[in-house]
């Protein structure tokens, strides 16, 4: 564990405190916290951080919402061929993000022949350049990545729902609750720990997402979809500035560590409360 996790972390932290360029790798100059100070004052880093937050929250919200909805529908007694539907909804999750990204780029969002514009056309909407327009590229990226992440929440919520005894549904039905009232007043309170668990997984996954966005937009147009992971890649690989790339990566790690700690603390308290 120490070798697998500790050594790369220590190396990354060390590089983040140095000026390290790939073309001059042996000439590493200690900079202390200067790289961090520079990053935090750099408008591009701040913009990438904002984009990352919007992207992450968008993916978490969409993943939870659709995950709950689909799991709730799948759990309905009226659903036939349940294993088929569960398998179908899991396909995006087993697909490599970069392949999913390419598929969405060329088949879904493509302006002339894409499915989205074809559907929009039926309702009289103008064909849009979804991935080439600064106004819509981030939205399109969130939708595509949510498509990839939602199956995980479907799986967890469906498993959790299947443990809720039928008597509870029957009781709420007798009390006159409709499906959405049952969901809101009966099911959701029981699923709260699972929602928290899924949101941590989706949050950490979306926060560090690279492949899907890279395949969709490459971080563009302009910098409208440049999230922190893409910024770090651009600094480290394109610019060969491994010092700054590690500073960005380590900042991401620190942010995620804090967020995960908050989540775990809340999760623990919630479990203690319920027991």
């Amino acid at each position, binding site marked *: 564990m120490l070798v697998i996790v500790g050594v790369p972390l220590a190396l990354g932290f060390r590089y983040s405190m140095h*000026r390290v*360029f*790939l*073309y*001059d*790798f042996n000439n590493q*100059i200690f900079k202390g916290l200067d790289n961090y100070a520079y990053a935090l004052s750099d*408008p*591009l880093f701040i*913009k990438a951080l904002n984009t990352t937050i919007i992207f992450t929250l968008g993916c978490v919200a969409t993943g939870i919402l659709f995950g709950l909805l689909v799991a709730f529908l799948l759990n309905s007694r009226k659903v036939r061929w349940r294993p088929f539907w569960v398998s179908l909804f899991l396909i995006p999750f087993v697909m490599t993000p970069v392949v999913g990204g390419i598929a969405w780029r060329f088949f879904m969002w493509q*302006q002339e022949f894409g499915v989205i514009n074809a559907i929009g056309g039926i309702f009289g909407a103008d064909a849009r*350049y979804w991935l*080439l327009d*600064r106004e819509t590229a981030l939205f399109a990226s969130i939708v595509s990545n949510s498509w990839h992440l939602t199956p995980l929440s479907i799986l967890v919520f469906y498993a959790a729902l299947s443990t809720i005894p039928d008597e509870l549904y029957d009781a709420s039905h007798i009390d006159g609750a409709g499906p959405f009232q049952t969901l809101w007043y009966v099911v959701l309170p029981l699923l709260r720990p699972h929602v928290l668990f899924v949101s941590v997984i989706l949050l950490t996954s979306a926060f560090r997402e690279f492949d899907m966005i890279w395949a969709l*937009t*490459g*971080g*563009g*147009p*302009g*910098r*409208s979809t440049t999230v922190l992971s893409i910024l770090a890649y*651009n600094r480290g*690989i*394109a*610019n*060969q*500035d491994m010092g700054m790339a590690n500073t960005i990566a380590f900042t991401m790690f620190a942010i995620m560590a804090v967020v995960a700690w908050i989540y775990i603390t809340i999760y623990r308290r919630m479990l203690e409360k319920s027991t």
Partner: protein
Amino acid sequence: MIHYILKPMSWLSAAALISMVGTVSAQDTTIRWALHPGAEADAVVDYFAPRYEEETGIKVVGEILPPDQLRDRMSIEAIGGTDRWDLGYHSPGWFGTFKDHVIDLTQLVEKHGFDVSAYPALVQNSHMKSPARPGEIIALPTTPAAPMLIYRRDWFEHPDEMAAFEAKFGRALAAPSTFAELRDVAEFFTRDAGETLAGKTLERSLYGWSDALGAGAGITRSFIVMLYSTGVSGWDENYEPDIDQPIVAEVAEYFVDLAQNFAPREAQNWGFLEGLEMFRDGRMATATMWPQGVGTVEDPSGEAAGNTAYTPLPLWENNLAGYTQGHPFLGGGGVFIFDTPNSEEAFKFLKWMLQDNEVEFGKRSLQFSRLSHFQSEELRNLKPYYADFLPTFEKVLESVFIRQGIPEWGAVMWNGTTDFITDVYSGDLTAAQAQERWAAQMREAFDAAGYR
């Protein structure tokens, strides 16, 4: 008696053994080359490598890498000392990056009679030398290239278009000789579907100009061509940046206007030559074209074949260096030899391909850089459009910017340009803000390298 018989026999056996060892060693030698995709890479893999193996027994393996991975993978292998490749292709702007890993070719050039003077002086300076290894020859040119402007001759010569242009702009419709004229031409030809062009109704929209505008390398390459035409060099002899001058903001605003108003939106997906297919299909009136794209433009199945005219890039008026035509950087690339046990064999292969088979290399790679390429009647008559294209390309090569080749060039100039034009194009920063940031980064890099 036996001694007299055995002695020559033993010499013969020794000679046979040495020759066998030589043969085994030649047969065992494999030269590995990291290549950039393109016609030249195909020529190496499909033609020159098999032929060289037939002639010498030495195997040449060309590994074609994705363009955006070539430098990084070669850097990583070189830093790791893996000897994975004996030869590496790259653009001269990045030669300095490999300064610690490639050999000086000067002695091999002399030993094997490689004629350096067969290349124009600018190509020698750009594609063979580097300030990172002063006084040495560190690469051989394979694909020196610089872009030109192409336009639809048939539309420019159409009487209706000529009359309409003259009525609108008060001068004759002609190949643009300045960037200001290029903007007029681009505006004039940008039309929606349903409008008329050269007496015909357009089924799809027509664009006045384009180049690749994709994030990263696409937009950087397109813009830096115009940037150097303003006469800036990036920095002066004292390593003081000159990219913070007002002319740089002017060219950035010009570029953004041209790209956002007269180029197709799809161009934001193009990394290099992809957009020339739209020119080929009759959907663009002018385009910036790197020579590697001429085959696409003149594809016989397209509308532009036989109707394309070639001219050097237009002049940036009042440029700081007094250039008399557009002044793109000299791009394309050269091949250097890594410090591996096969380095001399690798050089011999390069000499055989580039010099001993120079016309064949031009024919098969569609790359022209040696003086003989431009003088060869065989090459000039190879394709119907070469009679126009080759002299224009020769003229383009007379006025090109030679990149400085220091190890920091890629970081401060190429990626600096990427950040600068991305920020201005997207509106995230004003040109002045982006310039200030760029110049500060450049100064910091030069200070750290000890240049200032």
